[in-house]
């Protein structure tokens, strides 16, 4: 126990430094490894689906892009994504047209209009509703929403039938159509769009708002001149996140929509299909070629959602830098 550390302790110190370096190395590689694993999984998803798709496309006797039928297991295998692409895009489009304005309204309500006592619990409620499983939305959609849509669709057929789009060719059938699906999807993506938009609205610099109000702007003029321009990229990217959800939604669409392989612009007629719904419904009876064909359609869906989500994230990332500078 003298002032100079004994050789033993020095040795232990060196050993522990060696340990810590090894520990650091192991930990660093572990954590980097899991990051790399995520990238590998993404690449593997694309790779495996592409491989199985190529197998299927080689045996397809129709044009994959323009064929309406989906009969890959027939003696003459024919399948195409025309109906699915149309159904997916149209239902997602209807969902966006309905959900985006309402979601912006709710976000404004929470961030600028509601009394604080209501705003907080309501924001919380909206977040909770994002967690409702889609099968429950589907069950509610087909057993509650569809019967309640009856009156509305026949009314639209009657007064808006001249637009062709809202013309119902056969009345009296339950409205298990793309329009109802669009409304259901709108309800389902509302929470996510609201959540992201709300966060962006909260970041609006207080000075901008107060400056607008000090110049005599009404509340609406303040929102139009200060809040909305600041939040526009946020609204766009939130909508695209919601769009990604709507495009990929499977089981709710599968419960509500009645399927047939008809491409019809009459949105109120039952029928049509979407990528995800087609996969879910056709999967159980599919033969090996049928499964590969479904994977081909899954690959198309994967690429579409990848593009939509990637674009949304890029817009958000750009916004982040900008808002950091402005704050």
């Amino acid at each position, binding site marked *: 126990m003298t002032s100079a550390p004994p050789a033993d302790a020095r040795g232990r110190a060196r050993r522990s430094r060696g340990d810590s370096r090894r520990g650091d190395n192991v930990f660093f590689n572990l954590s980097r490894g899991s990051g*790399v694993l*995520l990238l590998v999984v993404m690449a593997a998803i694309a790779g495996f689906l592409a491989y199985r798709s190529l197998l299927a496309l080689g045996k397809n006797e129709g044009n994959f892009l323009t064929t309406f039928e989906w009969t890959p297991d027939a003696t003459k295998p024919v399948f195409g994504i025309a109906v699915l692409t149309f159904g997916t895009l149209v239902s997602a489009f209807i969902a966006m047209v309905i959900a985006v304005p*309402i979601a912006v309204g709710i976000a*404004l309500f929470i961030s600028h209009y509601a009394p604080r006592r209501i705003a907080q619990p309501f924001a919380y409620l909206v977040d909770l509703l994002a967690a409702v499983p*889609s099968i429950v939305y589907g069950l509610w959609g087909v057993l509650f929403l569809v019967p309640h849509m009856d009156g509305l669709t026949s009314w639209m057929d009657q007064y808006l039938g001249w637009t062709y789009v809202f013309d119902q060719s056969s009345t009296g059938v339950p409205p298990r159509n793309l329009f109802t699906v669009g409304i259901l999807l709108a309800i389902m993506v509302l929470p996510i769009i609201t959540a992201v938009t709300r966060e962006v609205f909260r970041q609006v610099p207080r000075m901008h708002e107060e400056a607008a109000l000090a110049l005599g702007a*009404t509340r*609406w003029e303040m929102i139009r001149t200060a809040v909305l321009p600041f939040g526009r990229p946020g609204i766009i990217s939130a909508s695209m996140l919601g769009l990604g959800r709507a495009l990929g939604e499977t089981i709710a669409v599968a419960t509500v929509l009645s399927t047939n392989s008809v491409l019809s612009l009459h949105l109120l007629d039952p029928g049509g299909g979407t990528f995800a719904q087609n996969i879910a419904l056709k999967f159980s009876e599919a033969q090996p070629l049928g499964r590969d064909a479904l994977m081909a359609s899954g690959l198309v869906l994967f690429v579409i959602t990848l593009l939509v989500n990637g674009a949304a994230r890029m817009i958000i990332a750009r916004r982040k830098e900008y808002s950091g500078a402005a704050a």
Partner: protein
Amino acid sequence: MSSTATITDATPPQLGHRLTAARLPRWAPAATAAASIAVGCGIGAAAGLESHVQWGLISALLFLVVSYTLSASVEGRRQARDRFATSLVWVSFVCAVVPLVSLTFYTVQQGIDAISPEFLTHSMKGVVATLSPDGGIYHAIIGTIEQVLLATLIAAPIGLLTAVYLVEYGRGRLASAVTFFVDVMTGVPSVVAGLFILSLWNIALGFEYSGFSGSLALAILMMPVVVRSTEEMLKLVPNELREASYALGVPRWKTILRIVIPTAIGGITTGVMLAVARITGETAPVMMLVFGADFINSDPFNGPQQSLPLYIWQQYSQINNDFGYQRAWGAALVLIAFVMGLNLVARAIARWRSPKGGH
């Protein structure tokens, strides 16, 4: 503005002139709303419209028009526009509340009848599902719990380590690539994750349907969510804590394990639980990979299992009569209660143990 006008015109100020413009009384919006709802319902009932959706739409439209015109005639156009925007925001609030409340109430109302001790403790084995209201969801509950647990065991460590990499080590192109693809991965449709595991696990590697292959797909859906939330939490840990630990000579990995992660553990737990809540309700991958069974199979590695979302789907689509619907609603209520409960607990933990301060 008017004061400059009075000065140049040199007219004496009038005694009776009011300083403020005319305003509608405070109760006007509420009164307008009540009146338009009453009139809307009246029109709906009078015209014999069956769908209450239409009643609501008519009321909303009336509310918007009346509040605009009323305000325009009393207060002027700028105020009227402001009132219109306010009304619009309130209408959108109601538009959101109505379906969501209806969903919750309808599920509770339909599901509560189905739930009984028998329903919770029996499987569907030997039940003629199309003809009798018997049977239960015990096998589905077991399957869901096992599959979700396995998925969590896979996804949570990987997600946690990835988040540690991004926050503590991440620099350069690899880190930004991981960040970007984690974000993109949150948007991968569940059905695509299912197809991928199917092609890899079941077709290429030749495994059978089992609870575990469902867990693999669920893990893919869960990983990015865990990474995102954990990353946010780790960023909240104050840098001073890390620096203090380094200054004491503690190696980096130990600092992360003993200082950083324990500080953020509340938030991390919350993130994992929210991710669990999200994958519990996933139907599509389970449908493809777990296949579904009527009997109790508590071995997730062998043979088909059941799960709650899949059970609901099968009761609806395969049984497709009132007996099936009732069981589906019962299972839906259990599922919602489970997910909501998880959410509430997760948020309570977040509030209780969130890292305070920091930058």
